[in-house]
């Protein structure tokens, strides 16, 4: 199979999964007690009014008509209007999405830049103090609930030392650059600085688990690779140790690391939801929790659809990168 055909096949599977995601989100309403009318109608609404609301929301239609209407609207980017605020659901979700993406990307960057060197150092200095420090860190890191870590960071760094704001998001990353372009260097740099100060603690909070996880994976992968006979062969050939480590062993280690990262993407998004709750970060997680609490179905559905589809999309990218790095995957 060629690389192109592989991507096509994966893309088709991805579309099937997206269809499944969308359908499950639709079904959620029918496995839930109560009716969306409850969320909209006043408590003392008459039966007649409730009937009118049900008609308005299209709830009196047969199930398959509701489903097809929903799919058709979704294809046109229409996810309905919030029951509470009347804002278009798609607009609401896409204004919140950048904050969550920013948080996820920032913490992944923190995790990747810290963990891979840490894992390599740990593996190449096995049973030395650096290795013990790295393994202890990674054990504690994968065992600490991130919301508690966030609270402890706030307690130490914000409450005690006042280094970082305790919550909120001053500017978006793109917004800060817009200010830089429109208002000049000084306010622009100030906006960027505020952005950095606000995202720092949430990114560390969300990134720690992944830093710990990837450190563990890199360490065990490197140890395994360094014990392989091809490493001994390259060593016997007289290649410098750094070349063996970074060009050969690390490269082979990264392939399984990428697989696990793809699988852990859900953990990243779930972690973002709770990190947002800790830092009042105005992203999809906060939106989701609010929507559930007030049964705002259009917003709830839109949030879940965007999270599910985002997951599928990023996984496709991971698969593509993976297949590019390891051509065996394409052949299978």
């Amino acid at each position, binding site marked *: 199979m060629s690389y192109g055909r592989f991507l096509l096949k994966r893309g088709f599977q991805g579309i099937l999964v997206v269809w499944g995601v969308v359908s499950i989100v639709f079904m959620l309403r029918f496995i*839930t*007690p109560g009716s969306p009318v409850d969320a909209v109608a006043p408590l003392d609404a008459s039966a007649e009014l409730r009937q009118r609301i049900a008609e308005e929301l299209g709830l009196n239609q047969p199930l398959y008509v509701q489903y097809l209407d929903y799919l058709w609207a979704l294809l046109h980017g229409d996810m309905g209007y919030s029951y509470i605020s009347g804002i278009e659901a798609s607009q609401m979700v896409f204004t919140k999405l950048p904050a969550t993406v920013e948080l996820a990307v920032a913490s992944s960057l923190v995790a990747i830049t810290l963990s891979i060197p840490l894992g390599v150092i740990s593996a190449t200095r096995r049973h030395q103090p650096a290795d013990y420090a790295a393994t202890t860190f990674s054990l504690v890191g994968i065992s600490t*609930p991130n919301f508690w870590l966030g609270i402890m960071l706030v307690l130490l760094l914000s409450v005690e030392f006042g280094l970082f704001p305790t919550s909120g998001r001053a500017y978006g990353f793109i917004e800060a650059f817009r200010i830089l372009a429109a208002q000049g260097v000084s306010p622009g740099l100030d906006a960027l600085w505020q952005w950095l100060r606000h995202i720092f603690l949430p990114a560390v909070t969300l990134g720690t688990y992944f830093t710990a996880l990837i450190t563990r994976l890199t360490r065990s992968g490197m140890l395994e690779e360094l014990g392989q006979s091809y490493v001994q062969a390259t060593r016997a050939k007289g290649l410098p140790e750094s070349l063996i480590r970074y060009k050969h062993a690390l490269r082979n280690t990264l392939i399984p690391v990428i697989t696990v990262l793809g*699988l852990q993407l*859900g953990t990243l998004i779930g972690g973002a939801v709770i990190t947002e709750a800790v830092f009042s970060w105005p992203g999809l997680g906060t939106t989701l929790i609010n929507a559930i609490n007030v049964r705002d179905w259009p917003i709830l559905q839109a949030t879940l659809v965007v999270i599910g589809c985002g997951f599928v999309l990023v996984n496709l990218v991971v698969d593509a990168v993976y297949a590019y790095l390891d051509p065996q995957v394409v052949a299978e």
Partner: protein
Amino acid sequence: MISPRTLRNLRKELRSSALAKIGIVLVLAMLLVATLAPFMALHNPTNQNLEENNLPPLGFSRATEETTSEMQNGSLVIKNETVLVNASASHPLGTNSLGQDVYSRAVYGARTSMMVGVLGTLLAAILGVSVGLIAGFYRGRVDDALMRFADISLAFPSLVLAIALIGLWGRAAVDIPDPFVMLGVVDPVRSALGLSTGMPDSFVLPGTVIVVVGLVNWVWFARIARGEALSIREEEYVKAARALGASDLRIIGRHVLPNATTPILVLATIQVAAIILLESSLSFLGFSGTTLSWGFDISQGRAYLSTSWWIATVPGLAIVFAVIGVNLVGDWLRDALDPGIEGEGGV
């Protein structure tokens, strides 16, 4: 199912690994605390005492502003004084904003975590292993359909799906009578030890949470079981059993499942850790059926972070130690049994 060779490997690994020993000690300690909570707690964890709220742990004190007013020479004098609140020996880890004993709440919180961790994992394992074995054993269309369904489930992060399901289904909980209180042994033992009596006579099991964490974590078990079934079905002994006319159900139950237990067991251990973390996240966000939970206490303590740091710190440390313990046991099993899986699953 557990062969002598497996036991030998477990023992050998345990002897050489200090971390494995620490893990076993932590897990046993937590099981002990959870089981014997009515004897380990210093106070009833739900008893409120507003006279003694926000007491600091032993060795610490808390500064607070106290306003007093009195009449002096016919005019009202208001005085602001900084008063130090000292720790009390009967609350070694302090009290929360309602005056509940932080230590005793952490002890009872262990019960919630253990129950949800073990029962949730069990449910996830039963669902996932069944699906995975069927998919791997029959292959073809059944496999395709089940695994596509698994892909779809995977597209919703566990925490997101769990929040949605619990938020929509409600937070049903079951009251389970505490066996020690029912037997009438708690009060006599506590009096003999000089502790306060009147411990809770029932324990709240957050039923919806258990069902939901099982439902959102089955996929990991399905993936592992499927992989095992795919390779085991090609083994000679399976072919022999089939030639002898054994039914599919018998082959899966008697041959495939027993030979797939090692990786399932290792995964189950990792999942207990993941589910303990998931449960604490859910109760932190208020999506739980019980208030005796580490995550819930952390969310309560958050409001008092600047004055009473211990309220959120103590239950958090309890989670960290419990999860470290389970993870170390998982590492031990993985290293000793070498089922060839990496740490999958998470919050």
